[in-house]
């Protein structure tokens, strides 16, 4: 049976099952909450979340039925640059960590240069020039002109 289900349809089934599981977990978690129990149920902080979880459950069931009855509408988009995407995400995480220790004007040109290198830019003058110019422009506009705090 599994071999008769196309990868596309299998993906849609897994999506619906994911939301079904999420909504069931939320329904159970919200229904069992006791904090706020001193107030009437109408004012309970868990009333509205419970309703949303119930709606999500209904939508997941509808999605599951649809996935079982029909084929998917669109082909999944290919992901040709997984490694690049993962590398950029890691770089962004490192940049955020670096901002805890370094000021914006130091961390940002380094981040910009590394990201430009990752994306395939190889002209040193452009990498350095753009990194410094963008950092300076953002500092001038935000910190000096608008008096908005930078990291």
């Amino acid at each position, binding site marked *: 049976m599994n071999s008769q289900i196309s990868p596309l349809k299998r993906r849609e089934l897994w999506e619906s099952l994911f939301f079904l599981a999420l909504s069931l977990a939320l329904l159970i978690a919200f229904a069992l909450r006791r904090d706020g129990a001193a107030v009437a149920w109408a004012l309970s902080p868990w009333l509205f979340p419970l309703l949303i979880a119930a709606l999500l459950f209904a939508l997941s069931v509808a999605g599951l039925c649809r996935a079982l009855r*029909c084929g998917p509408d669109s082909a999944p988009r290919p992901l040709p640059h997984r490694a690049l995407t993962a590398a950029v995400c890691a770089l962004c995480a490192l940049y955020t960590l670096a901002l805890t220790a370094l000021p914006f004007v130091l961390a940002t040109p380094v981040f910009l240069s590394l990201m430009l290198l990752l994306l395939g830019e190889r002209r040193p003058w452009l990498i350095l020039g753009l990194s410094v110019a963008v950092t300076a422009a953002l500092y001038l506009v935000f910190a000096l002109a608008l008096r*908005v705090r930078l990291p």
Partner: protein
Amino acid sequence: MLSFSSVFGCLLRPDIVLFVLLGALAGTLVGALPGLSVTMATALLVSITYSWETDRALAMIMGVYVVGVFSGAISAILINIPGAPSSVVTTLDGYPLARRGEGYRALQYAALYSFVGTVVGVLALWAFAGPVSALALRFRPMDYFLLSLFALSTVGSLTAKRFEKGLTAACLGLLLSLVGTDPVVGTPRLTFGIRALQGGVNTVCALVGLFGFAEVLSVLSGDELSQKPPRVSRRGASAGELLRHLLPSLYYSAIGVLVGALPGAGGPVAAFLAYGRARARTKKPSVPFGEGAVEGIVASESANNAVIGGALIPMLTLAIPGDATTAVLLSVFTIHGLRPGPTFLATNADKFALLIGAALLAAVFLLLIGLFLCPHLSALVALPRRLMMPVVTVLCVVGAYACSSRLFDVAVMFLFGLLGWALRRHDYPTAPVILGLVLGGMMDRSFRQAVSLAMSEEHFLPALLGRPLTLLLLGLTLLSLLLAFLRRDRALTSGR
């Protein structure tokens, strides 16, 4: 009612014209930069204008307010990062146009119809402040809940190929909006013990992440990095093409005024409702909606700018702010010794006239800035993607940090970016997530208020749903859901 001479007479003062212009330029910058908001700029101006003459303070703040609301469309169209939640709808059709090299044209439409929306809103404030505020007063908690539900069901069905996916995205947004401290009982909710979450999820961080960083990840993970950037067209729309949508924009502006007059509803609801109406009534759009239809830009920009006039109505006549920015404006009035309320229009006619005159003047500056200055920015789209994406990423970081000066918000922004990217890859729309985030708090409070009020009555259901206005809103919501369900059913039976 105020005379023309009292409204336009204040414009003969060079200092008022200058301060409106300064405010307009500041509003352009603030509104276009992701992470900064008109509300933030207005709040900063409260302290800056504290010692100024009242007229000059009001003039500058109106300049920032009016042009700031429009300029959220600049970044929405050019780089798919809405400057404010009310510009989310503009991204749906504005950004696809910019990607085809027609950003200039998109900005022209946004500028012109923002101008139309602002003028309609301000004229409604001038002429109909009394009746519109009386209508707004008739809304009860259940009506607010149903109006928000209607907006969510509309956007959920319009922005996704599949109805269930749109509503699922809206539910995700609603759940995320509930993170934080419950406003009624005061207990933490869905914070998982993280203290930084007790204030809730910052909407601006979510917006920047879902649209800005998610776009960066989409570009990186797809084939666009290696593609040549589009040729930017310098051919704008002709006057005839631009003005063809004038009549429908008056209708969308009316939606904006009415929704703006409801405290808490605001620009995003008005823009989405107007967009829904545009899709329903436009039989042959220029291109399909969601792929660069100018009718979509006309609807969203007319409505979200008309909200300005609408939001000022309850603020001035009832001292109830219509949105966050008018809440700050209320404090400006108080600082300068003015008392908005039922007698304001009678006792402060000169200040009322100044507000209207300044708003209309700001609308003119909006048009000039939008038509002549902004289109030159459309050349940004011609930059190679591998140079743009790092800059957009840093802009997202700065924008997220600017909200509350916390690196935690930057982390939240990145997480929302990953969520937005994952949703896009699986054909779930992100616009309903933002609308859910914006409306969730109000829906939660309104629903609980409505239910607890109805429980104290003898008959629960009639007390909850028995009013004509409530039944009308319930009917509209159910109709919207039914139509979306029938469209889905037709698709199922046709085998799609």
